[in-house]
């Protein structure tokens, strides 16, 4: 029997689960790569390729984020396990905060590279054109926002992770497991 792709009221489908972990991996990978590449010496062999990879994956992350938002809105969301209202309310708030960060981070990064009207090469597949350029100090403002949001998403992801681990090890409920087990 095939794996279930869509969500039900009780469980997450394969698409949601793969998106969740795939994008989590991308966020941490992009964060590490971003810090690494901005510290490279000019003569480092990775000096030009590291930003190229960072930008390409960043643009992919944006595409996945848009798709994920559509998937979330077009699918049932499994109900949370029983917990106090403040807890479920906080969890919901953090989820939507993460969605908005997943959209804003790539946008702010995109606005750095496209500030002079140049597009961004997505791997070597095609060039994503610049849609907004020439704002005064655009690359500096977008750069500062990109950096702060990057630290912020790591902080919020950490909170999200801590909460999931708390549910798993302290409350011993199914919150974490249902994001891991793909139901048939």
């Amino acid at each position, binding site marked *: 029997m095939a794996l279930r792709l869509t969500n039900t009221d009780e469980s997450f489908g394969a698409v949601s689960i793969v998106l969740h972990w795939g994008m989590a991996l991308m966020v941490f990978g992009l964060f590490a790569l971003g810090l690494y590449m901005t510290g490279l010496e000019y*003569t480092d062999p990775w000096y030009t390729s590291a930003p190229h990879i960072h930008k390409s994956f960043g643009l992919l992350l944006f595409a996945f984020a848009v798709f994920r938002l559509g998937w979330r809105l077009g699918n049932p969301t499994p109900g949370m396990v029983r917990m106090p209202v403040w807890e479920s309310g906080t969890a919901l708030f953090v989820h939507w905060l993460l969605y908005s960060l997943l959209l804003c981070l790539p946008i702010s990064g995109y606005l750095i590279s496209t*500030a002079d009207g*140049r597009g961004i090469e997505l791997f070597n597949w095609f060039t994503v054109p610049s849609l907004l350029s020439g704002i005064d*100090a*655009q*690359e*500096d403002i977008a750069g500062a926002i990109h950096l702060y949001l990057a630290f912020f998403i790591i902080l919020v992801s950490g909170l999200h992770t801590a909460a999931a681990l708390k549910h798993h090890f302290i409350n011993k409920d199914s919150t974490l497991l249902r994001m891991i087990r793909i139901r048939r």
Partner: protein
Amino acid sequence: MKRVLILLLLLSGLVALPGRVSAAEYIIDTSKAHAFIQFKISHLGYSWLLGRFNRFEGSFSFDKTEPEASKVNISIDVKSVDTNHAERDKHLRSKDFFDVKRYPSAKFTSTGFKVTGERSAVMTGNFTLHGVTKEIMIDVKQVGEGKDPWGGYRSGFEGSTTLTLKDFNITKNLGPASATVDLYFSFEGIRQ
């Protein structure tokens, strides 16, 4: 009565003009962009990278009959660095290079002017960049001077010098061919 007053004012202006000529103060025409500060640095030893500062202001005094008394003051908004690539300009403004948050402006104040030819001279002065002040020498040449078609008087100079980045505490390693940067400027002054 009014007419007489205006006439008197005009006359007093005319009378005062010869006195101004010997002072010969010029404001560099940045508002209409007849002034440029450009730089050129080697890229890996294989080609040149050219850039410019888009915002600066300055003035000079110059008199043909007394060139050694010439004076120049320039202030550059370092943030306005422009190499036709936003990512690179952002990098140039960062701590790796100009650190514009700490050192937003660069300044040049002349201290001497030595005539070396009919239209050429060597200007010495203090140049402050990246928080470091250093005496530099600039080869300058008068390009021309005279009346403009709109009732003013203009005088233009060009000049060049070579700066060593390390001298100004810019230590980012760009390779052995890129330790120095050539500066070129062309300034058109409007006599005040």
